Structures are given as structure tokens and as C-alpha cells.
């Protein structure tokens, strides 16, 4: 096999490809009209407020629910119809990282070993040792951060190509959050692992993620590499102006006015502004919040239809 690269069916397919994907629970759409493509070989963050459809999207991707509309393909396969072929290639840590609380750490690993043909036991044991967890201890007795680490170990030891993490750090304290994300980073460095993680906590994502997807109101808003996002967004402040003059050439994500000053968060894309504007760099959190706030304002008043039609990437 030396030098021979075996490309499996759909080996070059995107990690996740959604086409008009929608999921409705009763009368409420949890996810609607979602069309996106997430590349392999990158760490992609799925951000948005609670109820934005992040969990639904991930559960659809891993086959825990079926779409009401549209289609999702993971590594080129259908999560529901090709489950047999797909499941061994995908690692998933569900929200609140569920584990069998009555089992010991060792038994938890044994469960993983018994139902995953690709199980890497040395890796799993090494991880547990590195974390300093006693093998005989019941999982229910571990701290939240430790449980999250065990759940992550379980998902990584099956040696997946794609790792899906649903709000992995939401319930963790800042230190545990860092350690968890560090583990994810290490895993991506060691192997050709593609990671998609959802989060409503934006802090720390910048350090870990390559791509950003903003989900809000059950719809996709922005799909971009993070460095591009950071490079292209600017905060403009200047004397009070009609924002329409700016909006003609740029996307205005957020505008706020005081009596004398107007400040605009724009997708600048390298556009040069006249000197009456002061340019500031903005961090990821502010950009994300601007997108989320922008969408909400648009939905609430309908007045920003002008800009939202142009800004929102509904692909």
C-alpha cells in the first residue's frame, strides 16, 4: 500500500453539505432553509444564540433526527441511509456530553471498544492517564470538565475522520474550557481530523477555529474563514451621517447613532474610506454579536430589510 493513496467513495466530499435543510418540531422550525458546505481538514465553529438550530444541524448530520426538508450529506454519505458506513467515520459528543454515570472509567472505555471496530485502546488509555483519572472511578463521580474529557476521549478513540462537538464547553468553567479545546487542537494536529463544534460562547473560538458559521433564527447568516472575517470587518466612527451613503458600497452590519456621532460595523473588504471616518479593528465576539443583533433587529422591525437582503448570506 506504500505510496498508494486510497480514496474512499466520497473521500473528497465536504465534511458536511446541507441543501435546503430544514427541521420542524410541531409548528416551530428548529432549522430552516440551511444551505452550506463545511470543508474537510479545518476546525469550523457553528455559533449562534440558544435555539438558533446548532444542535439540530449537528443531530441531523449524525443521523439522530431526520430532516423535514432538504438534505444533508456527511463525508458524501447520507447519515440515515448510509449509517453503517458513516458512523465509524464520525465522532460525536452530544450536548452535556452524556455518559453512563454508573459505569467506571475503565468500563466506559470497554463499552467504546466493544462497539467501535476502529477503537484505539492505547490512545484511550493514554488520554485517561494524561488526564490523571482513576480507571476504577465511576463516571458519575467525575467533575463536569473530566466527564467532558472522557466523552471526548470516547469520540476520539474510535479514530474518526470527522468530529462533531455540540456545545462542548458550555457547561465548563474557563479552565476546563481551555483544556478541552486544547485537547481538540492536539487531536487535529496529530491526525487529519476535521472538527465542527457548536458554541454560544465565542471567547476562545478564535484560537481554535479556522472557519465560522453564524446561525441565527434558524437560518444561516455567514460562512467564512475566521481570519477573513477578522480582516474584512471594521468599526467606523465619524460625525453623524446618513448610513445609506456607506451602505451603498458596503454591508452595514450594525449601526448606532448618538447626536453627533455615527458608528458603523461594516464588512469593509479592504475598501478605503474618506478620512472623516476613523477605522477600528474589531474582535470576533463583537462581529458575531453584531450579526446576531442585526438579524434580530431586522426581524423585529422589518425596517432594515434593505441591508439584510444584502448582508445575510442565505446561500
Amino acid at each position, binding site marked *: 500500500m506504500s505510496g498508494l493513496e486510497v480514496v474512499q467513495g466520497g473521500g473528497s466530499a465536504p465534511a458536511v453539505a446541507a441543501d435546503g435543510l430544514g427541521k420542524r418540531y410541531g409548528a416551530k422550525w428548529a432549522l430552516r432553509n440551511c444551505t452550506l458546505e463545511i470543508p474537510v481538514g479545518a476546525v469550523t465553529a457553528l455559533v449562534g444564540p440558544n435555539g438558533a438550530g446548532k444542535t439540530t444541524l449537528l443531530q441531523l448530520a*449524525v443521523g439522530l433526527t431526520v430532516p423535514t426538508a432538504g438534505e444533508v450529506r456527511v463525508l458524501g454519505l447520507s447519515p440515515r441511509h448510509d449509517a453503517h458506513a458513516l458512523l465509524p467515520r464520525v465522532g460525536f459528543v452530544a450536548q452535556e456530553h452524556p455518559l453512563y454515570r454508573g459505569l467506571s472509567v475503565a468500563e466506559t472505555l470497554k463499552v*467504546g471498544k466493544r462497539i467501535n471496530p476502529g477503537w484505539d485502546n492505547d490512545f484511550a488509555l493514554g488520554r485517561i492517564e494524561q488526564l490523571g483519572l482513576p480507571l476504577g472511578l465511576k463516571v458519575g463521580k467525575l467533575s463536569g470538565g473530566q466527564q467532558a474529557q472522557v466523552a471526548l476521549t*470516547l469520540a476520539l478513540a474510535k479514530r474518526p475522520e470527522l468530529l462533531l462537538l455540540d456545545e462542548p464547553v458550555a457547561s465548563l468553567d474557563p479552565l476546563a474550557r481551555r483544556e478541552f479545546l486544547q485537547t481538540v487542537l492536539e487531536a487535529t494536529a496529530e491526525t487529519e481530523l476535521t472538527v465542527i463544534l457548536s458554541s454560544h460562547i465565542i471567547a476562545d473560538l478564535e484560537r481554535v477555529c479556522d472557519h465560522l458559521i453564524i446561525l441565527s433564527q434558524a437560518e444561516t447568516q455567514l460562512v467564512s474563514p475566521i481570519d477573513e472575517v477578522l480582516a474584512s470587518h471594521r468599526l467606523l466612527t465619524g460625525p453623524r451621517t446618513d448610513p445609506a451613503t456607506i451602505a451603498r458600497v458596503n454591508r452595514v452590519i450594525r449601526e448606532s447613532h448618538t447626536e453627533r456621532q455615527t458608528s458603523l460595523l461594516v464588512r469593509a473588504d479592504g475598501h478605503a474610506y474618506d478620512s472623516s471616518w476613523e477605522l477600528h479593528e474589531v474582535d470576533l465576539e463583537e462581529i458575531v454579536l453584531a450579526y446576531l443583533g442585526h438579524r434580530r433587529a431586522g426581524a423585529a422591525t422589518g425596517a432594515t430589510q434593505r441591508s439584510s437582503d444584502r448582508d445575510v448570506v442565505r446561500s
Partner: protein
Amino acid sequence: MTWVAWRLQRTETLIALALLVLIGAVLLPTGIEMSHAFDRDHLSLCLGHRPSGACNNAIEGFLSRFNSLGDLLAWFTLLPGLLGVILAAPFLLELEQGTYRLAWTQSITRGRWIAAKLGLPLAVALLVAGAYILVGTWWREPFVRMNGRMDTATYDSEGIVALGYTLFAFGLALVVGVLWRKAVAAVTVAFVGYVVARVFVDTWLRDRLVTPLKLSWNPAAGQPAALDHARILSEGGKILLGGGRLIRQGGRSRSPVTPAAR
């Protein structure tokens, strides 16, 4: 997956086996004692005859000694329900605690997982219920020979009836648990539902079933021709007939007791 399924319901399986051991501990010694008493007093000779004084005394004596045990056994009709809901509990816990999201995203398909996860407790439920049925049927033999097996506590605890009730309780707990996703609540509701169903069947439904026919004859004269197309549900001191032409002859009214060979 078998080990996984076993490990995840070890506790419930052990509880089910403990129940069986408990039942055995009650039934085996008393059953042996009862069957000895039945033989010693030659009660089998009293059956099928018009009661005589000596027989009456023997039967009275036996009943006064062991009837309270028979009443005790009536409580065991709760066992299939208990077994069914206890063994359904691990599956319900999986739904309540969300661990199915862990299990269904490992490398095996959910179909295989569910088959193992439900197959094992079902097998345990049927095995334990089956063992209980065998022991209980053996235990009840003296009573059955005197009273027949058609009374509620007996009929519902024997053969496939008790197996059916076990499956019913198991299925009911699953349905409630899938809809409600609270394991303890679902198990409780399902058990109450089981008791209600039993009471409904015993007090209302059974009265509306066709009454079995009873026939007695002198064994020396051979079996009456009327029995040729009947299914014998029970024989011994009393013979109960059901099905076939006799039912239709008797209609739905009172069953005609044929006074053969007086």
C-alpha cells in the same frame, strides 16, 4: 454489543433473578409440604366422587391448613408486571439521561443497538417468568386438582397467560417511557396500568367470557361421547370443558352440568 447490553442492565437483571429466588424460597418448601400432605391424606381418592364424611374432613383439613398460602400466591399475580417494568427500566433510563445520543453515534447502527438493548431484557423477562410459571404450576397442583384451574389467580399465573402479561407490562413501560422520557415515572405509571388492566380483566371482562362447561362422569363407564369434540381445560376432581359444540348447545346462559353416572 452483548457485553455492553449486559453491563448496562446488570442491576435490573439481578433484581429479576433475586425476585425469582425469593419466590423459589417461598414456593419450594411449602410446595413440597403441601404435596406430601396431599398424598398422605390420600386426597386424590376423594376427587371425582360424591363427598363422603372422611373425605370431607380430609379436604377441610387440607384447605384450612394451606388456604392462606393459596391466598399468598394470589399476590404473585403482580409478578409479571413487576418483572416487565423493571426490565424495561434500563432502556427508559437511556432515553431519560440522553445516553442514547452516545450509543447511537458509535460505530454500530441503532437497529443493532436497540435489538441488543431490548432483546436481552426480553429474554431475561421471559426466562424468569417461565421459571416462575413452572414452579407456580407445580405448587398449585393440589389446589388445581380440587378446584380446577379456571379461577383467576390460577389461570392468570399459568402457561402463556403469565408470559403475555409480562410482555404487556414490558411494552407498556416502553410506550410510556418513550412518550414521557422519565424513567421512574414511566415505570410507576406502567405498573399501575398493569394492575388496572388486571383488575379490569378479572372483575369485568372475565364475567363476560363464555362460561366453561362442567361435566362429571364415572371413570369406569368411559369418557362420554360429548367430550369427543371438546377441549379439556382441566381435569381431576372437576372437569371443565370449553369450546366446540358443547358451548353452542349450552348457549351463553348457565352451563348445563350433565349429571352422568350418579
